[in-house]
C-alpha cells in the first residue's frame, strides 16, 4: 500500500515536471510560442506572477515566501543560490547522519530504529525548518527597524527643532546612535540595490544615481517593498510637511505621541489575548505532577505482576 502511494507520488511529480518542460505540448503550439515570444505576443512572465494576478491571495503568499526577498530583509550576506546550496547540504547531512544511526543500530541491535523513508522525511522537515527560521529572522528585522524609528521620533523632533537637520538626515543620525544596527544597515547598506537587482519592475527607480526621486518617494517604496509601516508613516508626514508647510518637529512630536498611544493600546490587547493562553502552561503542570506520583505506583504494580 505504502509503496503504491509512493509510486503514485513519484509518477505525479514526474508528470508535472514533464508538463512544465513542454513534453505534452503539440509541436505546432511550441512553434507558435517561439514565434510569439520573439515578437512579444505572449505573456512570458513567471508562473507565480501570472497566478498571483488571477488569484490575489496567492500573490500575497508568493511575496511573503519569496526567498530572495526574505534574504534581503534579513540582511543575510548571501544570494538565493548560496542559501539553497547551504540548506541542501544541511538536509543531506541530517539524512546521512540519521541513516548512519539507523545503520549502526541495525548492526548492533539487528533492528532499524527508524524506517529509511522516515529518515529522509525528517531531513526534508529540516529544510522546512530552515525556511521558517529565515522567515522569522526577516520578521524580527522588520520589527527592529519599525521599533528603531518609532522610538526615535522624539529625538528626531529635537534634531529638526532648530532647522539644523532634515527629517531624512535626522533619521540617519539616530540610526547611527542606536545599539541595534538594523536601521543603519538598512539606510546605508546595499539592501536597496539588492532588491532592485532582483525586481527590475518595482524598485529599480529607487536607486538614486540620477537623483530623480524625492526622499518621500524612496521611503514609500521602501515601506511597500519591505512591509515597513514606519517608513510609510514617515513618508506620509514628510509629504504633509512639504505640501502644507508644517514644522517638522511639531509633526514628529505628534507622530511620536500617537505611536506611544498605539503602543499602549497594543500592549493592552496583547495582555488580554495572553491571559487565556497562559492557562495552557499552567494546565501542563499536571504532567510532571502526575508523573511524579504515578511512576512509583506503576513500578510497584509492574513488580507485583512479575
Amino acid at each position, binding site marked *: 500500500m505504502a509503496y503504491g502511494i509512493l509510486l503514485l507520488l513519484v509518477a505525479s511529480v514526474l508528470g508535472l515536471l514533464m508538463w512544465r518542460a513542454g513534453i505534452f505540448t503539440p509541436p505546432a503550439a511550441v512553434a507558435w510560442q517561439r514565434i510569439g515570444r520573439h515578437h512579444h505576443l505572449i505573456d512570458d512572465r513567471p508562473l507565480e506572477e501570472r497566478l498571483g494576478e488571477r488569484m490575489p491571495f496567492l500573490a500575497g503568499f508568493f511575496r511573503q515566501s519569496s526567498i530572495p526577498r526574505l534574504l534581503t530583509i534579513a540582511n543575510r550576506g548571501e544570494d538565493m543560490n*548560496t542559501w539553497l*546550496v547551504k540548506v541542501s547540504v544541511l538536509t543531506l547531512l541530517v539524512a546521512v547522519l540519521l541513516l548512519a544511526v539507523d*545503520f549502526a543500530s541495525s548492526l548492533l541491535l539487528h533492528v532499524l530504529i527508524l524506517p529509511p523513508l522516515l529518515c529522509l522525511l525528517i531531513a526534508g522537515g529540516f529544510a522546512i525548518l530552515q525556511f521558517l527560521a529565515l522567515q522569522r529572522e526577516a520578521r524580527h528585522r522588520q520589527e527592529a527597524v519599525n521599533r528603531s524609528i518609532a522610538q526615535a521620533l522624539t529625538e528626531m523632533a529635537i534634531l529638526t527643532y532648530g532647522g539644523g537637520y532634515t527629517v531624512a538626515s535626522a533619521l540617519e543620525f539616530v540610526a547611527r546612535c542606536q545599539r541595534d544596527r538594523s536601521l543603519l544597515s538598512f539606510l546605508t547598506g546595499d539592501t536597496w540595490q539588492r532588491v532592485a537587482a532582483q525586481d527590475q519592475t518595482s524598485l529599480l527607480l529607487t536607486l538614486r544615481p540620477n537623483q530623480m526621486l524625492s526622499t518621500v518617494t524612496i521611503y514609500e517604496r521602501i515601506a511597500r517593498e519591505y512591509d515597513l509601516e514606519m517608513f510609510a508613516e514617515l513618508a506620509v508626514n514628510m509629504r504633509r510637511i512639504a505640501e502644507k508647510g508644517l514644522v517638522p518637529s511639531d509633526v514628529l512630536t505628534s507622530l511620536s505621541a500617537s505611536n506611544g498611544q498605539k503602543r499602549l493600546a497594543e500592549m493592552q490587547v496583547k*495582555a488580554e489575548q495572553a491571559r487565556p493562553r497562559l492557562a495552557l502552561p*499552567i494546565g501542563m503542570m499536571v504532567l510532571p505532577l502526575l508523573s511524579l506520583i504515578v511512576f512509583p505506583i506503576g513500578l510497584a504494580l509492574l513488580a507485583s505482576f512479575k
Partner: protein
Amino acid sequence: MSPVLFFLQILLLVALGLAFLLFLIAGSDPVMRRRRLRALEPLLDRERYVATGLGVEFRAWVTLRLVTIGLALAVGFLVGTPVVVAGCLGLAVFGLPWYLSARAAQHKLDMDRALVPFMINVTNLLSQGQQTLDHALRELAHNPDRRLAHALEPLRNTDSVSGALVQVARRGQSPMLERICVDLLLSMDQTPEAFIEQAERILIPQYQQDVEIQSRNHAALAGGRQNGLIVLLIMALAFILVMRIDTLRSAYTTVLGQVMLVLDGAIVIGILWLLSAMTPRSQWVRWDVAAVVEQMRRRYS
C-alpha cells in the same frame, strides 16, 4: 572488504564532505561570523542589567554567580546523587538570577519613575535662574533622589558633562535613562529657552508615556513570574511529599527513577520557559550614548 564496512566508509566520507562544504559556505560569510560573535552580547547585557538593578558592581555579581555555582556543585557532590548535582546546578545557574531579576526589574522601574521628576526639576531650574543645562545637571546630581543616586554619581565631579552622561547611561543600564541622556546630549547645543520649550512640549510627556508603558510591561512580567513561582512551589511541595513516603521514594533510587526525575525537571523548566515566552513584553530601543557624543563631535569638527 566487507560490503557493510564499505557502506559505512561511504557514509562517513559523504558526511565529512558535506560538513566541509558547509564550513566553507558558512565560514566565508563575514555577516554570519559577526552575528555569531554578537550572539553572546544579550547574555552579558542581561547579567549587567540584573547587577545594576541590584545595585552591585558587575564584577561582584559575576563573583557571586561563580560562588553560587561552586556551592551548588559542592552540595550536589556531597549528596552524591547525579540528579541532585544537576538540580543544584540548575538552581544556581537559572533559579537564582530568575528570582533576583524580579527585584532588579522593580528597582529599575523605581529609577525610571524618578526620572520624570528629575527632568521636571531640570526644566524648573533652567526656567528660574540664568543657568545653563550643564550647571543644572551638576546641581541636581549633588542632591539627587536616592533612587537615582547611584546612576547620577558621575555627574557630581566632572568637567565634561557629555562624558559624564555616557557614564550615567552605562551605570543605569536602563533604556529610559539612556534615552534621557541622549535627549540631554542633543539639547546641549540649544539655548535654555529652546530646551525648556522642548522639554515641556516634547520630552516630559514622552517620558510619562514611557513610564506608563514600563509599568504595564512590568505588571505583565510580574504576573508571569508569579505564575512561574506557583508552578515551582506546587512541584516542590509534591516532590517533598513523595520523598517523605518510603515506598514512593524507593522507586526514585533506581536509575530509571533518576531518569524520570530529570525528565520531570525538564518538563518544569519547559513550562517556565513557555510561561515566559507567552508573557507579552514591550521591546525598547537601546541607545549607544557614546556614539551620540561622537556624532555631535563630528558635526562641529
